[in-house]
């Protein structure tokens, strides 16, 4: 039985194709795909060497997706220790506490890609103390951006001690680019660390979990598809203006389109970007975000097509899923026997 990803929207199957097809029942196929995917991810975030060191310690395992995810998170945590801390202890500790609550709630709803909450309902109020008084622990990202048209409400039910007037919204599926309206060159989430806490690692685990077959099934793919379709609508006109990369005739230093991604010929992708009505979009962020969406749907497709090898837990997740595409497929396969 086939599984048509376009059930989630036009072009979703083509998006997954960008990440490459693989068969979860083949250990070689799975190992190759995950190793390639994690290496590309690490290249963008700058922890290739830490990942390579972790991978060299990995022994043969039956569950390569889970093993490489653990190695990837450990490598990311290691590389974060080599970066400048971007938060004070007070801020990072509050961020950690908030993320814990958001992730717990998001997991229950099957919506971890984008999490949102009324900050005044949180124990910390998503506020932390700095030298000027109380400040918001996260950026109030509710203006129209690349992931959505903005979130105006509902407004906080109680008065915020640090000035929250909107919900707290984070896009953890594309961490460290967590804000829809502020896509800095260095992903803002990479600054979520201090000597006392590393909330960035907690958030990065969500990126890793999207690649884990079981966790991938838990995520309502309709949420991911909706955000992707918005991202594509906002970025397609900007990307269409770029020349197509052709070896031998590409212009040195210029941003090109290459295999669906952005590429600077003989230059750094990290200093290039797109400018549009929704603000600046750094080129590495564009590639990384697109890959996160593509990888998510590639794993979704591979997982569904490997239904014969599902664990009882996966069967339970699929049959109880609010996602009609997944449920219909799972039920169809069960009926077919």
């Amino acid at each position, binding site marked *: 039985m086939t599984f048509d990803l376009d059930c989630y929207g036009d072009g979703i199957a083509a998006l997954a194709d960008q990440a490459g097809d693989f068969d979860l029942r083949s250990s070689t196929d799975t190992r190759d795909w995950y190793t390639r995917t994690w290496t590309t991810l690490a*290249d*963008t*975030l*700058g*922890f*290739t*060497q*830490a990942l390579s060191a972790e991978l060299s310690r990995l022994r043969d395992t039956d569950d390569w997706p889970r093993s490489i995810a653990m190695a990837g998170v450990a490598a990311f945590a290691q*590389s974060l220790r*080599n970066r*400048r801390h971007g938060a004070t202890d007070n801020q990072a500790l509050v961020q950690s506490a908030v993320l814990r609550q958001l992730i717990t709630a998001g997991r229950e709803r099957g919506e971890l890609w984008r999490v949102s909450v009324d900050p005044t309902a949180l124990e910390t109020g998503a506020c932390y103390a700095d030298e000027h008084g109380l400040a918001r622990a996260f950026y109030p990202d509710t203006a129209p951006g690349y992931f959505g048209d903005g979130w105006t409400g509902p407004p906080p039910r109680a008065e915020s001690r640090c000035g929250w007037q909107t919900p707290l919204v984070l896009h953890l599926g594309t961490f460290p680019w967590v804000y829809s309206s502020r896509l800095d060159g*260095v992903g803002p989430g990479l600054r979520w660390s201090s000597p006392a806490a590393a909330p960035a690692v907690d958030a990065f685990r969500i990126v890793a979990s999207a690649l884990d077959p079981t966790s991938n099934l838990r995520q309502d793919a309709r949420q991911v598809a909706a955000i992707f379709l918005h991202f594509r609508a906002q970025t397609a006109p900007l990307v269409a203006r770029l020349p197509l990369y052709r070896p*031998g005739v590409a*212009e*040195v*230093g*210029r941003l090109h389109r290459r295999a669906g991604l952005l590429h600077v010929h*003989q*230059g*750094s*992708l*990290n*200093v290039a970007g797109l400018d549009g009505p929704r603000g600046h979009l750094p080129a*590495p962020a564009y590639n990384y975000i697109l890959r996160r969406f593509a990888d998510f749907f590639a794993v979704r497709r591979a997982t569904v097509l490997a239904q014969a090898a599902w664990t009882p837990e996966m069967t339970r997740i699929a049959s109880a899923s609010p996602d009609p595409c997944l449920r219909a497929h799972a039920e169809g396969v069960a009926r077919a026997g």
Partner: protein
Amino acid sequence: MNRSLWIGLGASLGIGGVVFLGSRRASAAGASPTGQASELAPLPTASEATGDLEKNWGDTPVDLRTLFDKMQAVSRIAGSARIFAIIAFRESSFITTAHNGNAQGEQDERDDSRAAYQNNKDRNPPLKYGEQAAEFGSGGLFGALAPYFLWTGVPEVGKKAPLLGAPPELMFQPRAAAFGACVYLQRLLKHYRVDDHADIKAGWANPALLGKGRGSDSYNHVRARFLEDAINLGIDLLDTSTIPPKLSATAWPGVPAVFADLVGALPKELS
């Protein structure tokens, strides 16, 4: 700073090669002015690195770290990778096609390259694209002045210097710019009094600042700005595990070896 003085000193000191102009952010070149640059190998990737790409790089672009690392490995100047990163941060903001001389207000850059060419063409081997280099200004990742960039290696290997037949736009290709920067750094380290890392940037701006100009306002200004750049970029110059207290070019393998490792063979029409 007196640019004509820099050029004069560069020539009279017999450098005959690259003089890098400090102190300004470059404008990006949208296109190669003459379209004559030929294709070199792409930037090295992380899998080719021999050094640490994660420690003490600050906000240095991830995809350029391997180039800086390779420059350090090839030149055998321990600790130079992060110094090159700080220099590129100032000279080009990491834009490989940075070009000083193609904008309205950059007449002085063209004047400098014109003077560099006119004052030195009789004492150096001829450049195939000398006239274009004279009108080019400066640019690339490390802010090289075009005629000196093309004469890179002349003091070391004379007429066998590898860029004599190349157009100035070649400096927009990071491997070629890296070659010029490596040669220049070893020259500074070998032939000048370099007391600390900030002295390297002073010499980069103008080698005379390491001689008679030492202690001058310009010298102090360039040094202070370099130290500030390091802080802004997030590189700790005091981290001796990645940058020794003093850089040394005693293990320098020679211009041909550095060129071969960084650039490889130039296309036939340029060699």
